[in-house]
């Protein structure tokens, strides 16, 4: 089956409209673990806990609060939150074309691919080719999962990529980071330039791998060979178990049921 899209709709500008699906471009190499109870290896589940009442809080008693000063909150309902969420969009409307080199990589948020849907293949190919030749990226606004994103659409190896961009207000200033300008000694500068020159290579990301992940997977494989995995208990019935009152009432009823059958 085709890859499940995260979103589908059309990408458009002026008179062009191309049906596309959005799919993820990244499968994080993160190795995740489940939390188990060390005594019986049961999967642990999360519960919301009220420290005041010292008990688990059911979902219907949970509300959202925005902290304005420590300990003081403005309550917000789901309806209110929904009222400010943008409408889901069916189109990615390119509003301008830019030179991607002008975009500081610090703006890059999350990459996706755009896959042509049925009937859109030809127009898609054309756009990929033209954007590649002109070296331009399309800038668009687009709603995904109730948030409006600024996105850049770029042409790669025969495919369109969509990268969500951070809004400028999300970028922290770097002014305080760079130290006061001092005089740069010519000798120093040349020495650094030379060192860099000696280390220049073509970018080849395939050379590098997440070493910890590989070691972790090897370790897991070795451990799996060495020893059988621990098993979570099946939730089983112990005979005669249950609240004593209920057991007694059921035994009494059962006696009568059997007598009448």
């Amino acid at each position, binding site marked *: 089956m085709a890859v499940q899209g995260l979103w*589908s709709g059309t990408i458009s500008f002026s008179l062009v409209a191309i049906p596309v699906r959005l799919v993820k471009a990244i499968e994080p190499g993160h190795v995740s673990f489940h939390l188990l109870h060390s005594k019986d290896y049961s999967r642990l589940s999360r519960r919301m806990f009220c420290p005041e009442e010292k008990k688990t809080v059911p979902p219907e008693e949970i509300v959202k609060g925005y902290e304005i000063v420590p300990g003081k909150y403005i309550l917000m309902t789901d309806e209110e939150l929904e009222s400010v969420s943008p409408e889901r969009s069916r189109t990615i409307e390119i509003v301008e074309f830019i030179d991607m080199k002008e975009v500081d990589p610090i703006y890059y948020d999350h990459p996706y691919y755009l896959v042509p849907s049925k009937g859109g293949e030809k127009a898609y190919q054309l756009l990929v080719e033209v954007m590649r030749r002109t070296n331009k990226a399309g800038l668009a606004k687009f709603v995904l999962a109730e948030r409006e994103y600024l996105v850049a659409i770029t042409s790669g190896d025969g495919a369109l990529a969509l990268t969500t961009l951070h809004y400028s207000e999300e970028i922290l200033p770097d002014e305080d980071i760079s130290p006061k300008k001092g005089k740069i000694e010519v000798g120093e500068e040349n020495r650094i330039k030379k060192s860099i020159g000696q280390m220049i290579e073509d970018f080849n990301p395939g050379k590098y791998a997440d070493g910890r992940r590989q070691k972790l997977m090897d370790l897991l494989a070795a451990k799996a060979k060495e020893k059988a995995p621990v098993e979570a208990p099946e939730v089983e019935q112990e005979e005669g178990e249950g609240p004593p009152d209920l057991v007694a009432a059921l035994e009494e009823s059962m006696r009568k049921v059997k007598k009448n059958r």
Partner: protein
Amino acid sequence: MNRTFVEISGRRLPLSNLEKDLYPSYGFTKAQILEYYRGIAPFILPHLRDRALTFKRYPEGVEKDFFFEKRCPGHRPAWVKTAEIPQDDGEPMTVCLINDLETLIWAENLASLELHVPLARAGSPGTPDSMVFDLDPGDQATILDCARVALVLRDLLSRLGLATYVKTSGKKGLHVYVPLNRTETTFEDTKTFSKTVAGIMQKHYPDLVTAKMAKTERKAKVFINWSQNDASKTMVCVYSLRAREKPIVSFPLKWGELENLAGLGDPEGLQVLHSEAVSKAIKKGDLFQEMLLKEQKLPHL
């Protein structure tokens, strides 16, 4: 892909592959599936309403692979109602709610032959509005054995003052339900109660009943699956089609009807086909209506 458009409540909906036979050994096309759900809609919709739907999709028909889909597909039309359900990892998941005919038809167009829903509504996922005993016959047991167990359960629970309702699973089993409809009830309550009942049943009918999940324990017995009383579990919705050779429906029965049918000793006699389902529902009304209304408190907890 062959496309047809329908308009329901002013909403235009594309339907695809209507001529595709999804029950090949019986002969039942997607068009007929949509027709079934359109006919049964007045009866099934109240039971689907506001519940996080689990799609069980059979894009290539009942003889081929299926897949479960809990997350509401991203390609859904904007008017499909959704809810956010908290998950183990704390990240909420968007699920579909089938609250109207157009959403039902949309879901069926995705070949979601079986519709599964939790015992709680999406707005109060920790509050089961019913308790269920999922009676599942082992390899050498039949739906008739399930009927015997169901009838004992009915009598046992009625002595504790609890009214029960029964439906066929549409496969080999029966589902006995106890409507609760009280905001105070928790899954911990229904699980403790049903587990205790299953234990007592096993103790008194050791040759007929097991309360144990292990397959080897089940062979010629009926497994009372009490563990379905859990926020993370779903049950096939009443009036949903099932994916087996024939388009059989999970259908509610009157207790007297179950007694009579079981007395005839024909396991197939307990199965309700799609065509029969719609006409029976129209004639008898919704036998599961009380599931949505009746308030009952679990005693002795």
